């Protein structure tokens, strides 16, 4: 029984890590900030949930499980909120999406703002 649980837990960890890696590929390859934050935050919460659930299965019922639950609670509390605040701040400071309805931003206008600065 314990063996089955630990294999299942290992499998969940692998799936969660695979999600994280996919998210990282998204962050690396997607064209602009908003698509990147989408890739990062969704896979972070999903991947973290799967990995921590898998570790819970491996650990069995003990103090370690409780700590894993706490890690999960804190990750679920902080990651989406931070992503929300970040996207909110970027959008309200005039950081325009590159794709979608905001395509109208002229390229020469974009070039005027120097690299690495986002201040309006």
């Amino acid at each position: 029984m314990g063996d089955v649980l630990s294999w299942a837990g290992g499998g969940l960890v692998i799936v969660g890590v695979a999600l994280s890696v996919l998210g990282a590929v998204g962050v690396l390859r997607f064209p602009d900030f908003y698509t990147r934050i989408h890739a990062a935050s969704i896979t972070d919460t999903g991947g973290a949930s799967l990995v921590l659930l898998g570790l819970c299965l491996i650990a069995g019922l003990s103090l370690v499980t409780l700590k894993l639950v706490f890690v999960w609670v804190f990750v679920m509390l902080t990651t989406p909120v931070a992503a929300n605040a970040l996207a909110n701040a970027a959008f309200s400071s005039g950081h325009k999406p590159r794709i979608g309805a905001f395509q109208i931003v002229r390229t020469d206008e974009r070039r005027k703002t120097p690299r690495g600065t986002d201040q309006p």
Partner: protein
Amino acid sequence: MLLAAGTAGLLIAMAMMIVRAIMGPSHYDRILAVNSFGTKTVLLLSVVGFVFGRPAFLDIAIVYALINFVTTIALMKFFRYRSLAQPLCGSVAEEARDG
């Protein structure tokens, strides 16, 4: 064995985040990279504890999750409002005055 593979995968994801943080191009991308890097660090610490047989050190993972949040908020606030002191709710009034 599965956990070791998971550790390797997380290290790869962290390396990708470092690349994004170095490349930028905007500071918001960098903050995003740090935040996501921190979450992956939390996962790595949890998994590594099991790989090395001392899972009791999960406290460090908890503290990472919390401090990562504080840092992200500080960076966000710095880039958006150029201040560490003003309250967040005052920003809209300022925009209305400026614009």
